[in-house]
């Protein structure tokens, strides 16, 4: 990466600058001890010039490094501030797509369940009813007409059973297929994670460059202010276990009961 090379060159030039200062200082002391004041003031002018040159060069390099870092953010600087073709913009689109995809998959899965559930419920109901009739038959409590009705009803049930289980199987298979969204969204999320990692690297780089700017120009950094967080703003699902996060419904219940719930 361009900016890290610049950093090495910067320290080299720092060393050169320090060496120049030391040489000049030695000569200056010599000149002063030997009462050569004209030489001494010449040396002081050289010192000034060398310091100015060093600052100019450093700032130039830092500007270059800053530019590189911004380019590495993959933001099209010409389009700034819209940045409509940046990878960040692209990542937002990907994430929106993940939301849409998971929503569609959840809805289609629930559609399937809503289709299947009444079929299973009807078959179950009919099976229970037939079982009761069947028990009567075994206890020889059915007359000829009852038996004829049971005979017909059993036949209908077996037909319903065949058709119903076919539909149930189709829906169950479809639900399995719907789970493919996990793979697809996972791939999109991985790409976004990759981008975030890159952006983090570039940000760290920028922070380092900014630190060098402060050093070269003699700007004292402002006192670092602690990040102020809104108290208890919503955060969404907790991914890592922390002490201040409950591990499940049981802990929620314990906490609430300790509060008198």
């Amino acid at each position, binding site marked *: 990466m361009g900016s890290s090379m610049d950093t090495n060159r910067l320290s080299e030039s720092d060393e050169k600058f320090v060496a120049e200062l030391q040489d000049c200082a030695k000569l200056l002391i010599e000149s002063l001890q030997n009462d050569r004041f004209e030489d001494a003031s010449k040396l002081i002018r050289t010192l000034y010039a060398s310091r100015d040159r060093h600052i100019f060069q450093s700032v130039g390099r830092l500007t270059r490094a800053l530019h590189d870092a911004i380019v590495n953010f993959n933001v099209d600087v010409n389009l700034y501030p819209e940045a409509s073709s940046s990878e960040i913009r692209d990542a937002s689109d990907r994430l929106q797509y993940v939301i849409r995809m*998971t*929503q569609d998959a*959840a*809805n289609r899965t*629930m559609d399937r*369940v*809503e289709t299947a559930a009444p079929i299973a419920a009807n078959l179950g109901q009919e099976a229970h009813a037939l079982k009761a009739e069947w028990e009567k038959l075994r206890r020889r409590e059915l007359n000829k007409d009852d038996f004829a009705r049971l005979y017909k009803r059993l036949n209908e049930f077996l037909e319903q059973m065949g058709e119903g289980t076919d539909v149930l199987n189709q829906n169950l298979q479809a639900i399995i297929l719907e789970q493919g969204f996990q793979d697809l969204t996972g791939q999109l999320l991985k790409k976004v994670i990759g981008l975030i990692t890159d952006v983090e690297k570039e940000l760290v780089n920028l922070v380092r460059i900014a630190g060098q700017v402060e050093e070269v120009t003699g700007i004292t950094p402002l006192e670092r202010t602690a990040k102020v967080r809104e108290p*208890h703003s*919503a*955060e*969404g*699902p*907790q991914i890592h276990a922390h002490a*201040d*996060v*409950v591990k*499940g*419904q049981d802990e*929620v219940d314990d*906490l*609430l009961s300790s*509060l008198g*719930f």
Partner: protein
Amino acid sequence: MKILIVDDFSTMRRIIKNLLRDLGFTNTQEADDGTTALPMLRNGDFDFLVTDWNMPGMSGIDLLRHVRADPKLASLPVLMVTAEAKRDQIIEAAQAGVNGYVVKPFTAQVLKEKIDKIFERVGG
């Protein structure tokens, strides 16, 4: 029993609606955040509110505070169903007057338990 389900994700509303239907509660309506839910509650003789916490517009915790501050709605039972799982947040919800708190992801069994418990307490 008329129930309002408030969540910004339509799938979650649908899941809760389905679970409630299984529990025998068929009269449900939906809102996608506190801002749309509040006028519905004020005009609609609801018996029960199920709300998410994290929503754009008005959040669930703010909705809860508005409900408790409204004399007409103050005694409405409120169940929070949310992914927010910090102890401080649960305490905050309890202090704001929530009647039950369920963390996502949840099971039908947990939802049923909490609803039963709320009505047991409210009814008795």
